[in-house]
């Protein structure tokens, strides 16, 4: 019998400096032959590679964890699904089934939610650019609108006149919560007095009813205290405008931004250590609320958490197409998924798992995507044993922002499947082909090619 084969490798030994990426590495040699009990091999046989795979069980579980963390600590909570984080119908439908309303930031997202069957009054409409027509629709259908700037106040007053209605609106605030960067480009600044000016302006117009405050302090926030600050400042402001202008604030929408168990580039601690639990965030937010609200006053707390709910429910299966040795000795692989479909590769070092046991020592490797573009680097530092061609890598978490920010660039976008709670595997977005891309193109007749095959 022949001996089992392992690819040949040689490493230089450095005295007093045991390879700092060696042993104990977070990503060292992890094997995952299945996702939710369905073999990776079968998934690829049926749906091809690369392939996005979502777990319904994990999605519902993550949502319920977050929901329980807040509803156990505060009596009036609403979760509103951030469409931009993942607006695949099937994903939204699951979260709406769990009770989430829809948080949208464009007329496209608004229309997508409506088409899915979400009533207007279960939509929160945010964002810096809300075309007038979309405001008309949103007001008519009773959506909650959070105003971003003074022009939008004027636009809404125009809509109010046209419809003979008094829209109930919120305003978006931005503020110092002790973290950087401060997302000060959205909404009205609190500390500068701009926010109170906006309230004055709304009161002076007399055509709008201010009933809500909104804020979103950023994304992948690792600091629960930032939310405590946010909440305290919002409550204080709510009471101030109630006293000075008589507007009763019915909801405090604190946005999203909770992190997922992903590893940001530049952070070397594994996510289990670096990322606070949802309970820590909930504890901070709810304590801050209860300690600053008047007794018996429970305005609705709205959360627009995206990433923390869906990121860990998504996996990407990708296949090793070729191996390379860089001039500096670094090992590299070309895989069939690149930054065209994996936008979050710019921020994260994913968890990389192999579909099979591969023998041989791990070494630091680069994962290149399939694009003929220098930017196409899925990971610049991942510990991998010598991988045979055809090895499948399972990257996670990839459920947030990829299937929305992906682009049709150089390659077609691949299939997306959902594994249901009973193990059913369903296609929820079909891979593209040429017809999807050329459908919108128009070739002027005079430019048609006359070449003969």
């Amino acid at each position, binding site marked *: 019998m022949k*001996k089992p084969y*392992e690819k040949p*490798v*040689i*490493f*230089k*030994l450095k005295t007093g400096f045991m390879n700092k990426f060696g042993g104990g590495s977070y990503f060292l040699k992890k094997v995952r032959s299945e996702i939710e009990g369905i073999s990776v091999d079968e998934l690829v046989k049926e749906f091809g590679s690369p392939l996005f795979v979502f777990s319904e069980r994990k999605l519902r579980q993550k949502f319920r964890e977050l929901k329980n963390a807040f509803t156990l600590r505060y009596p009036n909570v609403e979760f509103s699904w951030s469409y931009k984080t993942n607006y695949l119908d099937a994903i939204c439908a699951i979260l709406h089934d769990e009770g989430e309303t829809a948080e949208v930031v464009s007329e496209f997202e608004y229309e997508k939610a409506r088409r899915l069957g979400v009533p207007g009054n279960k939509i929160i409409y945010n964002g810096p650019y809300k075309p007038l027509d979309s405001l008309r629709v949103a007001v008519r259908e009773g959506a909650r609108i959070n105003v971003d700037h003074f022009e939008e106040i004027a636009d809404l007053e125009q809509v109010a006149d046209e419809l003979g209605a008094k829209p109930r609106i919120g305003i978006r605030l931005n503020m110092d919560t002790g973290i950087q960067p401060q997302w000060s480009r959205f909404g009205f600044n609190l500390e500068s007095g701009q926010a109170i000016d906006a309230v004055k302006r709304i009161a002076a117009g007399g055509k709008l009813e201010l009933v809500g405050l909104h804020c979103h302090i950023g994304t992948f926030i690792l600091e629960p205290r930032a939310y405590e600050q946010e909440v305290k400042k919002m409550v204080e402001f709510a009471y101030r405008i109630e006293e000075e202008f008589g507007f009763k604030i019915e909801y405090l929408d604190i946005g999203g931004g909770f992190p997922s168990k992903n590893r940001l580039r530049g952070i070397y601690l594994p996510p289990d250590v670096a990322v606070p639990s949802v309970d820590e965030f909930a504890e901070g937010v709810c304590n801050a609320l209860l300690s600053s609200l008047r007794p018996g006053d429970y305005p609705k707390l709205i959360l627009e958490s995206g990433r923390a709910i869906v990121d860990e429910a998504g996996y990407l299966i990708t296949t090793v197409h070729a191996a390379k*040795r860089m001039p*500096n000795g670094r090992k590299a692989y070309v895989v069939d998924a690149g930054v065209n479909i994996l936008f979050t590769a710019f921020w994260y070092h994913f968890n990389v798992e192999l579909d099979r046991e591969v023998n041989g020592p791990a070494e630091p490797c680069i994962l290149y995507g399939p694009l003929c573009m220098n930017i196409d680097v899925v990971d610049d530092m991942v510990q991998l044993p*010598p991988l045979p061609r055809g090895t499948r890598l399972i990257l996670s978490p990839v459920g947030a922002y990829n299937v929305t920010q992906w682009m049709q660039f150089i390659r077609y976008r691949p299939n997306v499947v959902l594994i249901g709670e009973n193990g059913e595997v369903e296609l929820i977005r079909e891979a593209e082909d040429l017809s999807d891309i050329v459908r919108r193109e128009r070739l002027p007749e005079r430019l048609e090619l006359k070449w003969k095959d």
Partner: protein
Amino acid sequence: MGKLQKLAMSDEGFIFDPETGSSFTVNQTGLFILKLLKEGKSQEEVVEALTEEFDVSREEAARDLIDFLEQLRLNGLLREEKSV
């Protein structure tokens, strides 16, 4: 005498380069190849030997040998002029 002939090798895969004082570690496949190269075997012969000794296709062995030679070169264990 080629550079490879001067290397000290243990059966555990410890390699010492007396010229530079550097030490290396290789896995079993790497050691197997190094020994053959030291004996002056050609690339074809090494590939042949690999397929006889291990459960590996000729294609994969040939591909991996190229990569291994590159690793040796990068570690200064093959002289540039001596292309094996």
